[in-house]
């Protein structure tokens, strides 16, 4: 790298600091605001920090139920379903010689990115309605899974492709059945990829707003993203202290999941084959 003039260096630092602040400020707000009884949209250290906001949030049974029950059902369900289906699909796409399988994957990705979300909401609603899946968590889980799967399969297939077949062939030759080979050899090797996809699916389903809004009817089945509105007045103004406390609680499971998986399994990738 070329040696920069002090002025250019200073400029670069300034830019980096500004960019950093831009991303850090909302985080700071998220940490300080819930502790402040008179929260505004500005970041201020509360003069008398208290947990009153959290107490008020926990008194809102509807919002807490949304967070601790509905969100876990939807997020967990989509996570498990996406991880299982994407693993099996990408494994078979990677390991079998099916003519056109590569094209299929690309078409899937293309279609899912073009015909997704808002544009597909009406047909998805009709489909769910005719299948009797309106106002059911499973309906939300299935729609979220369907939307996430193409990208998940794409990510996973790349991952499975990067694992040499000779691992599995070695197991097949020395006496293992294909199923046993999958569980004993392939699964441990693709596990980091499965974890990445699972977390990604969880985060996406956890934060979903439009799909549950369209497909769910009963308030007691709504996830937290919609339950936020219970902290708005009837005129539509948010009760910022409670919104901030709820938002803080809303982020915790995602962070926890990431930390636990990173601590327990680690997002490292296996090497260890001689090339």
């Amino acid at each position: 790298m070329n040696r920069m003039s002090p002025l250019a260096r200073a400029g670069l630092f300034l830019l980096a600091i500004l960019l950093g602040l831009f991303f850090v400020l909302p985080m700071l707000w998220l940490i300080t605001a819930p502790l402040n009884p008179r929260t505004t949209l500005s970041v201020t250290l509360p003069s008398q920090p208290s947990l009153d906001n959290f107490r008020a949030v926990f008194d809102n049974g509807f919002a807490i139920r949304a967070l601790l029950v509905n969100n876990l059902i939807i997020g967990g369900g989509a996570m498990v379903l996406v991880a299982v289906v994407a693993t099996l699909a990408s494994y078979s796409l990677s390991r079998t010689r099916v003519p056109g399988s590569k094209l299929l994957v690309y078409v899937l990705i293309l279609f899912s990115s073009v015909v997704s979300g808002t544009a597909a909401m009406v047909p998805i609603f009709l489909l769910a309605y005719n299948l009797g899946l309106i106002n059911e968590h499973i309906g939300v889980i299935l729609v979220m899974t369907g939307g996430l799967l193409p990208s998940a399969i794409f990510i996973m297939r790349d991952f499975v492709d990067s694992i040499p077949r000779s691992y599995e062939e070695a197991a097949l030759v020395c006496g293992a059945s294909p199923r046993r080979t999958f569980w004993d050899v392939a699964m441990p090797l693709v596990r980091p990829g499965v974890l990445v996809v699972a977390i990604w699916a969880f985060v996406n389903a956890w934060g979903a707003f439009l799909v549950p809004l369209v497909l769910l009817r009963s308030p007691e089945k709504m996830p937290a993203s919609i339950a936020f509105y219970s902290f708005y007045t009837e005129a539509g103004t948010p009760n910022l202290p409670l919104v901030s406390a709820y938002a803080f609680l809303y982020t915790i499971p995602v962070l926890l999941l990431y930390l636990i998986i990173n601590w327990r399994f680690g997002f490292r990738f296996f090497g260890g084959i001689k090339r």
Partner: protein
Amino acid sequence: MAEVRLDNVTRQFGSVVAVNAINLTIADGEFVALLGPSGCGKTTTLRLIAGLEQADGGHMYIGDRDVTNLPPRDRDIAMVFQDYALYPHMTILDNIGYPLKVRGTPRAELTKRVTEVAERLQIGNLLQRRPGQLSGGQQQRASVARAVVYHAQVFLFDEPLSNLDAKLRVEARAFLKRLQHELDVTAVYVTHDQAEAMALADRIAVMNHGRIMQLGAPLEVYRRPQNLFVASFIGSPPMNLLPCRVDLGARRLVFAGGAALEMTGMMERLPASLRDGEMVTLGIRPEHITIRETAGASTLPVKVYVTEPLGGESLVITQMGDLLISIRLFQDEPPSLPDAVWLELNMTHTFLYGAEGELMR
């Protein structure tokens, strides 16, 4: 232990015929090397025997069982892979013991047998490590141990030494040969390294374009290559192959540029089908040529191109027209030679190949 028999086995990938109607019988306890350039079908042949590829035609037998349509696990084979394929998430103990675990061997007996094999292959102290913590040579031994531990009938080796450096490779080669003798197993060994094939195998199958070009004992293949492909592939440096025209009347072979050699010493074994004026290829190994500083009754005039000291021996490369002819001298220092010399060929060690590349004598 068992005999392995391939009967007209064919494997196609799309329009490419990787293995073309191969017939090969490997005797019980025999060590056969499949040797050839990349893409010749040797690895596919091995994978067909392993059951990792499905044959498009023909039959395969191990012992008296027809294994053509059996999955790998029912063939009773062991295989050592080029990349070793040790499972990175298991210890060396679990890696070597995996075939036993799959067979439902109790843990205590598994540990005992793995320890025995590992001691024998001098990796007994590494059993608690993971593959990533082992050197290349140790990984190679671990992968051999995994193949040895369950007493399969047939051993398959897919270029197991090609990832080792030169010094380790010679060690590992000797070690594999000892092991094969001790275990007295049937083995099929794929390699593109002829020195490895010559050193290890009881018989070599030289392959090209999905066919076996020659099958025979190493020295037999070296001494009497059955066709131009084998002649050009076996030997380092390879055999000199000199296109020439047969002049039956004058009993001479005439080369481009007009130089000629008398056919004395080879006449009596010439095929009756040889016609006057026919274009043939004369083959002679570099060690069967003598360099003369004067012209003789039957010598080829050449220019010295380069000389190469190779350590124990040296190589003189000469030029006749646009042909390069190499001569191997068993002396460590290349001789100082005048620019123009004459080559005397030991005609009893020459071969004549016809237009189709087939051996005529």
